[in-house]
């Protein structure tokens, strides 16, 4: 097993009487894009704020690169770059001044490195303009630039695709993947957009109501989803079809739109088709419905309940 860049040990956050995060334990492996999924209000941002020391931890601990964020903040945060929520920069300064500002706070960042990062995020043309003239996409790029200035081992991004257009999302996604692959940076991304996580992440943790529900690798969950696909069959005579299928020993159900629902893979679909046609039932259509991560997620969390 690879070493973990982040180790959360029974992290709990209580404010007043409310428990926002409840004994969350999680390991983020080195060099992976790690998704952090949950409906709104599940505690994603709270967790991230604790990871970067913006919020205190009620009990438990978070270790980053082996250093406790609570007790050894300066060492722990050293290898972290982050955007928490929106990339809020100093609007009255230019993009370049913003980067210089953050570069000064960490020793060893040269002017050359700043230039390199500007080129990396593709902001050369506008870097000397005031940030208030930037579009959201450009601010997002500047946000990424300040986060990677010091070549962090861990990049934490909170809802990074919020407000980006499809091209921007795609670009960010490709960039994060490249960063993880080529530079070995672990990326911790939170989102409530699951389809996006599916494309971006190696591994996804799902939380709800401050509790960890599941951690799974995206690849694995796709395979599992295919094996468990639903087949929807549209026929003229549902009664007759149900009898034929029952005779085959196939469990069936009917959904709200009048389709017969069968669990099985492609082979099974062909067999069922043949049996129905042989029995003289008209088959208008057969289609497989592969469950996306999103469906699985909704199933697991019971919809977008805020609570």
């Amino acid at each position, binding site marked *: 097993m690879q070493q973990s860049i982040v180790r959360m040990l029974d992290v709990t956050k209580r404010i007043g009487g409310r428990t926002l995060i409840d004994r969350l334990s999680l390991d983020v492996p080195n060099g992976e894009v790690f998704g952090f999924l949950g409906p709104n209000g599940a505690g994603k941002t709270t967790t991230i704020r604790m990871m970067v020391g913006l919020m205190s931890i009620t009990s438990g601990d978070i270790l980053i690169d082996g250093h406790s964020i609570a007790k050894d*903040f300066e060492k722990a945060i050293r290898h972290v770059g982050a955007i928490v929520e929106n990339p809020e920069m100093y609007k009255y300064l230019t993009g370049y*001044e913003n980067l210089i500002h953050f570069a000064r*706070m960490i020793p060893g960042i040269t002017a050359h490195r700043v230039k390199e990062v500007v080129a990396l995020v593709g902001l050369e043309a506008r870097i000397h303009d005031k940030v208030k003239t930037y579009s959201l996409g450009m601010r997002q790029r500047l946000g990424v630039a300040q986060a990677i200035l010091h070549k962090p081992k861990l990049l934490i991004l909170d809802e990074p695709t919020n407000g980006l257009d499809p091209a921007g999302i795609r670009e960010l996604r490709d960039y994060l993947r490249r960063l993880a692959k080529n530079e070995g940076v672990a990326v911790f991304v939170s989102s409530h957009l699951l389809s996006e996580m599916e494309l971006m992440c190696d591994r996804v943790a799902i939380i709800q109501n401050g509790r960890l529900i599941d951690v799974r690798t995206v690849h694995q969950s796709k395979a599992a989803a295919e094996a468990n696909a639903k087949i929807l069959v549209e026929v003229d005579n549902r009664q007759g079809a149900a009898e034929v299928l029952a005779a085959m020993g196939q469990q069936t159900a009917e959904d709200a739109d009048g389709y017969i629902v069968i669990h099985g893979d492609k082979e099974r679909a062909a067999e069922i088709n043949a049996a129905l046609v042989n029995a003289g039932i008209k088959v208008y259509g057969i289609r497989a419905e592969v469950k996306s991560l999103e469906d699985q997620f909704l199933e697991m969390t019971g919809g977008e309940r805020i609570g």
Partner: protein
Amino acid sequence: MVDFLNLVRNENMKMFRAPRLFVMLGIVIGLIFVVSIIWFSYDYGSLTSDMWEVTLVETSVLFWVVTIFAVIAASGTVAEEFSSGTIKLLLIRPWSRSKILMSKYIASLLFALFMTLVFLLAALLINWILFDLIGNAQSSAGSGFGSALVGGGEESDAALITRYYLLTFLNTVMTVTISFMLSTIFRSNVLAIAMALFIEIVLNNLLQLLQLFDKKWIDYLIFVHLNLTKYAGGNVSATDGMTLGFSLSVLAVYYVVFIALTWYIFNKRDVAS
């Protein structure tokens, strides 16, 4: 140490930014200029005033503007980071919160010092041109008006001005510290600035009336001591008989409490906005 100076440089960069700085400089220099011109036009026939005297009077009447600008800068340095959300980016660097707050406090004091020097130099220059060059006043300690104003003795004009400015600057430092604390606690620069205005304009003048009551605890209120210029003439105040040493001791106690509270709250606060 060099690294820490970088933090102060950052805060300076944010604080000394155009156009706010130019507006402030324009108001300070403009006010001095207008008052000097008016004084000069009234005085032109007789020419009894000299540059030191005019500068001293202008300082006692107009210096609150400098304090207010210093307060605006100081309260903005913390509160604006919270209101714009940039505090999150600032606090996730390998620096303790105490050091970040310290860099902001130092930058606030540097800004106050800068505005004070601008005020002093602008006043001296404008009044030197008007009253000494054009007006040809005898620039000597002879007029005695300035000394009479603060009850000074045999000091030279320059020494008197220096002493007056040191005392005034201490007042500004205290007011800046109070507004720095308020903006850290409430994360609102409006409240901090309003409070500082209240202290500067209302309390500084009216609360001295409190001393008419013969109660011991009144002597320990901070407001009674904020206006230190009553000691410009000597270490014992002519108006209420208190000593500079006593006032400084009371202020020092308040100062330590304010600073401790500011740092404690800033270190403890959960940043969620």
